[in-house]
């Protein structure tokens, strides 16, 4: 394995971390459109918290996918063709929730507005759940042949472990979304988000513990890397606990950062466990490795120069755009 290959493995992890941190809360907010917000005015406010941002957040996924193609095309080809149906459902979910905000705003009848609110809610739930399921199934190991072609059957990616993984990521996104709403709104919505999180956090803890247990039995993570795996799982629980402490003590920033770091811990856990592989095959001889899945040194070198010159500029204006919309949105009067 060359150092450039390692850099790109880490960079893909960073891009997915960014994606889960950002799209995590915007999935969460999307899920809350229907049940959490009680009326049309509240829904306007809830959607507006992510209005200027959801699109940019989703670009992190597109960039992660593109970067994977540009650095580890064998990984990209195996993963994307192998998890065909899950990715297809993810795409459908992302499309429905993506257009829902703009379409809802322009619908004239309540029925149609309601239709797009459901599209946002269900789309966001499904997207978060399916992403959790996909990555959990991926680390459990898949039937992959010598050519790198994966032929997984339903039971390979739909099982107890992957379902728990899916639910865990969904709940994590949901609390992250609630923490974001607490930061971005005031009045009734802000109070309600706190109340919801007080209920949801114990559920999340239970989910995380169950996930850790299944991780032990379903993957080789604890066997191969006992130290780091344990450390990251503990970190995950600590970040969640900190966030919960923030919820109980009404420290809003602490909760938000905590839930964000929890999501990032999940990504770190996955990438640490994968290393030095990128795809885990049931037959270890067929696992895809960092060293033989990457592009040529020339392309990696080129991409490294380009990425490290463009990304800092992107980060500056990306963060600036959040700063511009830092101000809180008021809750509609009747609910305050």
């Amino acid at each position, binding site marked *: 394995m060359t150092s450039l290959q390692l850099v790109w493995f880490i960079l893909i992890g960073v891009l997915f971390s960014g994606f889960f941190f950002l799209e995590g809360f915007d999935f969460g907010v999307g899920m809350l459109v229907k049940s959490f917000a009680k009326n049309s*005015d509240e829904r*306007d406010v809830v959607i*507006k918290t992510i*209005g*200027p941002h959801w*699109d940019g957040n989703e*670009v992190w*996924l*597109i*960039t992660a*996918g*593109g970067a*994977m*193609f*540009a*650095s*580890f*095309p*064998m990984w*990209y*080809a195996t*993963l*994307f*063709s192998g998890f*065909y*149906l899950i990715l*297809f459902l993810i*795409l*459908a979910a992302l*499309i429905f929730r*993506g*257009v829902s*905000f*703009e*379409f*809802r*705003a*322009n619908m*004239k009848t309540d029925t149609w507005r309601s239709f797009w609110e459901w599209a946002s809610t269900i789309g966001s739930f499904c997207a978060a759940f399916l992403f959790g399921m996909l990555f959990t199934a991926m680390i459990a190991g898949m039937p992959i042949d010598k050519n790198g*072609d*994966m032929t997984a059957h339903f039971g390979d990616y739909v099982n107890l472990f992957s379902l728990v993984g899916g639910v865990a990521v969904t709940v994590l996104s949901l609390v992250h979304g609630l923490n974001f709403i607490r930061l971005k709104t*005031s*009045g009734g919505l802000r109070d309600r988000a706190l109340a919801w999180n007080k209920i949801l956090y114990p559920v999340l803890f239970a989910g995380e513990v169950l996930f850790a247990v299944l991780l032990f039995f379903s993957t080789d993570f604890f066997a191969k890397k006992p130290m780091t795996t344990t450390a990251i799982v503990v970190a995950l629980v600590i970040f969640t606990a900190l966030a919960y402490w923030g919820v109980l003590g009404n420290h809003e920033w602490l909760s938000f950062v905590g839930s964000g770091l929890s999501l990032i811990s999940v990504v770190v856990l996955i990438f640490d466990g994968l290393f030095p592989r990128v795809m885990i095959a049931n037959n270890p001889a067929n696992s895809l490795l960092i060293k033989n899945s990457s*592009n*040529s040194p*020339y*392309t990696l070198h*080129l991409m490294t120069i*380009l*990425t490290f010159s*463009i990304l800092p500029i*992107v980060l500056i*204006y990306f963060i600036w*755009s959040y700063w511009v*919309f830092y*101000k*809180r*949105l*008021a809750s*509609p009067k009747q609910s305050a």
Partner: protein
Amino acid sequence: MLNLGLDILGLARFQFGMTTVFHFFFVPFSIGLAFVVAVMETMYAIKGDEDYKKMAQFWGKMFLYSFAVGVVTGIIQEFQFGMNWSEYSRFMGDIFGAPLAIEALAAFFLESTFIGMWMFTWGRFNKWVHTLFIWLVMFGSSLSALWILAANSFMQNPLGYIINQQTGHVQMVSFGKVIGNPQLWNEFPHVIFGAFVTAAFVIAGCCAWRLLKKDHVDFYRKSLNVALVIGLIFSLGSIATGDLQSRYLINNQPMKFAAMEGLYKNSTNKGEWAAVSGFNTKQHKTTWSVDVPYVLNLLSYHKTTGTVKGMNQINKDMHAKYDKKFGSDMNYYVPTKTLFWSFRIMSGAGALFALLAIVGLIFNRKRSQLIMKQRWFLYIMGLCLWLPFVVNTAGWFITEFGRYPWIVYGLLTIADAVSPNVSVASLLTTNIVYFAMFAIMGLIMIILCHRTLKAGPDAENTDGYSAGDTKELDPYSKGAFNHD
């Protein structure tokens, strides 16, 4: 499993065609609208004329709808390479991944961030700063077109690579050559100019329908003027760049060029150009045609003499060149009828656009009332709002059908590129669902644009989403900062 004579190759190709055509309804419309709206807002910034601000906001609404659909369908495009074309991804990763990743990094972040800024900050920034936002969106989306076309150009005309002897995959040796590909610099201006023309004539068409109803006459006449000036400049630009591109094909992809002109036999020195013809594609023959002398040579070489190779000759040449590697049972004929008619639709429409723009600008002169009296003209203009979408599709039909049977010209065939592990059932499902989703989204787009038009430029922004900060939910009220 069902046996409908469907195979993964056919289904994967259909899916790529369907998703690309649908995605490319919105891409040029969005790029073009961003440009037109940016021009309008710039005029507002310069002149301080509120009408231009109203115009930017009004046509900007359509831009936002189009952008949303363009973004979500774009994700399908990116994922599709890995999902349906895994062998292609493995073969091309070293070349194709780079522009795709740079596209996301340099272009998508720019446009998606600044579109949020533009949408939600009317009145919050200095008007020049706010205008800059929409220019950045326009710049970002054009940049994204550049990068994806760089990837496409390699598929049409591979440059700057070697074949890795161990893996058999392509390997980049010169990024400069990948970016400097003449195919790209012929293709890119044509695509961008085409995008500007698309937006210009959709806007012009919308204006025409409203003018027929005598609705907001001053507003729509002013919008029409901006649209037609842009439409005229860039339809001429499209024709010029289209000419460059087609002449580039003669040496580079002779089969594509010969099919565009419906030429089975080598042409004679007289340069007979078939305005219309019938073909027997099985026997590789032209059955009838209406010929005009010299035009073929004028189109091909800008002079009256010369000959152009026909498809039968090119087919032989290609067999001689590729049989050793790909076997002798390859078919190098491209879908002739599709290319022939697509080219005629595209070039005919290009000329029509230029003509409509000139006539429209004459009729719409400031003190003249001609535009209101020439209702026939407004009807034509109104109907032509659909034409750019047909033309853009025709252009891609030529480019993509014309590289048959290659996915990467001369290096990899389409048949060898498809994912071997994806089932017919999966592909059939995704095709059906995508088709249904596209139909719904397309329909809603049309309804929304129609409704926006009917509501008119003075309609209050009641949606609470695009309306940005204008609703009574005042985020700047005192309590808004209360952190307790």
